[in-house]
């Protein structure tokens, strides 16, 4: 029997890469699904600070967080990566910077960037993608979804969009005319998708819990839930993934 002090094992979720604003639906759907397996509770967060405060010092819990976030906190929080999310069979994803303006104009003055990722993540990724971002000040408009960020450029609300390559490809399929107006100005490094991590002091039934998450894609109810996180499955990490993640 798995049990923590409060009787329920919590799965804490925060993503710096997506502006998750369907907390109510996420919580309800995940709780309903997880209850089939035992006393589990899904707890999504909209704030990195609140998430970190909640998980600090907790041992019998699972954490779902972006690979970027994991890299920043795994030492201080004594975390161990267990699984990574998969989409279209791929563990890695790439962020891109898209604009409808000429690269020279962007270099001269970046302007407003629409992004569905957290401000910290967007700023850090952009500075790595385009040197000019380290020199100029730029504003970020946080939007709910990658597709909103891309449409913001297409319809002239923002000069640039920071979004995933997947989202751009999907939008190309839906509205090619709009995407023809946009150009990819820069590409980020490939990074692992969402990470499932455990605290090093985790004492509950590790195998049962990890299998529960890993097997979500095996049944239609589980598949629907992980689609809500923008994934279609989970995979274990190999040594190369681990070294990239913890380097």
């Amino acid at each position, binding site marked *: 029997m798995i049990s923590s002090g409060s009787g329920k094992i919590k799965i804490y979720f925060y993503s710096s890469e997506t502006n998750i604003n*369907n907390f109510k639906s996420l919580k309800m759907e995940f709780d309903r699904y997880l209850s089939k397996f035992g006393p589990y509770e899904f707890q999504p967060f909209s704030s990195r600070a609140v998430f970190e405060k909640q998980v600090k010092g907790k041992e019998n819990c699972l954490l779902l967080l972006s690979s970027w976030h994991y890299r920043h906190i795994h030492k201080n929080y004594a975390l161990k990566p267990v699984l990574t999310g998969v989409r279209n069979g791929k563990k890695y994803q790439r962020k891109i910077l898209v604009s409808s303006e000429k690269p020279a104009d962007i270099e001269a003055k970046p302007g407003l960037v629409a992004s569905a990722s957290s401000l910290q993540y967007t700023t850090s990724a952009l500075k790595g993608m385009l040197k000019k971002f380290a020199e100029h000040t730029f504003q970020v408009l946080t939007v709910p979804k990658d597709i909103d960020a891309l449409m913001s450029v297409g319809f002239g609300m923002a000069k640039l969009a920071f979004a995933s390559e997947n989202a751009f490809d999907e939008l190309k399929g*839906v509205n090619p*005319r709009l995407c023809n107006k946009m150009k990819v100005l820069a590409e980020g490094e490939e990074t692992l998708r969402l990470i499932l991590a455990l605290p090093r002091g985790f004492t509950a039934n590790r195998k049962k819990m990890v299998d529960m998450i890993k097997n979500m894609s095996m049944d239609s109810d589980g598949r629907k839930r992980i689609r809500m996180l923008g994934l279609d499955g989970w995979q274990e990490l190999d040594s190369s993934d681990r070294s990239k993640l913890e380097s």
Partner: protein
Amino acid sequence: MKFFKLICFIGLVFLLSVLSADEGPKIMVINSNAAVDKYKIAQEEFTKTISTPVVEIDLGGRKWKIGEIEDLLYDEYPDLVYCIGTKAYLLANKFISDRNIVFSSVINWHRLPLSQKTYGVSSELNPEMQITLYRYIFPGLKRIGVLYSSKYNKHWFNEAQKAAKEMGIEIIGRSLSKRRNTLPELKGLLKEIDALWLISDPVVMSDKKTLIEVFKQCDISKIPILSYHNAFAEYGAMVIVSVDNPTTGRQAAAISREVLSKDVVRKKVQLPAGSHIFFNLKKADEYGLKYREMALSAVNRIIE
């Protein structure tokens, strides 16, 4: 004594000059009624994003005399006013139209009196944005039916039809001239379409009874209803695409920053940058509709 007074005077002048040098732009937020959730959210996001102290006025909080507001606006004489809702905008525009005014949460902004210094975020997503998001959820969508009246929506319909055509979607319209035509026209339309796009039109949706019957007829024919307002969720709409209110506040803050830093604002009144999607997954499964499973991550509210 004279010397002491002179020192004090010089000190005061120095202090005032230091204070005024440190002073940032004066920003005021006028909310038509902060008890309205979407107005409140827009205000909260604006103040959080602009990260400068702002003077906040809630017109719904108490009974204001017009003279009081006039005095307040002239006393403050802000560099920029963010007006949430029509009432707030009309008052700011009446008294201080020479100041920068940014509005949001105004229905049909085209009817507003605008000045050279008016900027804003529209409350309506344009047809192309809506069709894009409907198609994003239902990639197989080919024929969408629309009931509309030429009197109110002819231009909108033509724009929607043009945008849809670019995406390989046919918009099949039925123009109504009389309220009683809604149900007979719908009956004919249902045989030709994959989904019904319910738009804001006083001729089409004249009363609640007609609205309920429209939903009932579509449900019998298993034709999903796509719409623009969350109020239709309880009637059984399949997908509702509306404006994301927190983003509107942030967008107004971004425009305000551009205006205050004297940057070129490319579009004075912008389309909303954020969307909110409702999806009735339970009904989609009941109807046997194929949807893009990955789109679930973009949905804000799911009914299952």
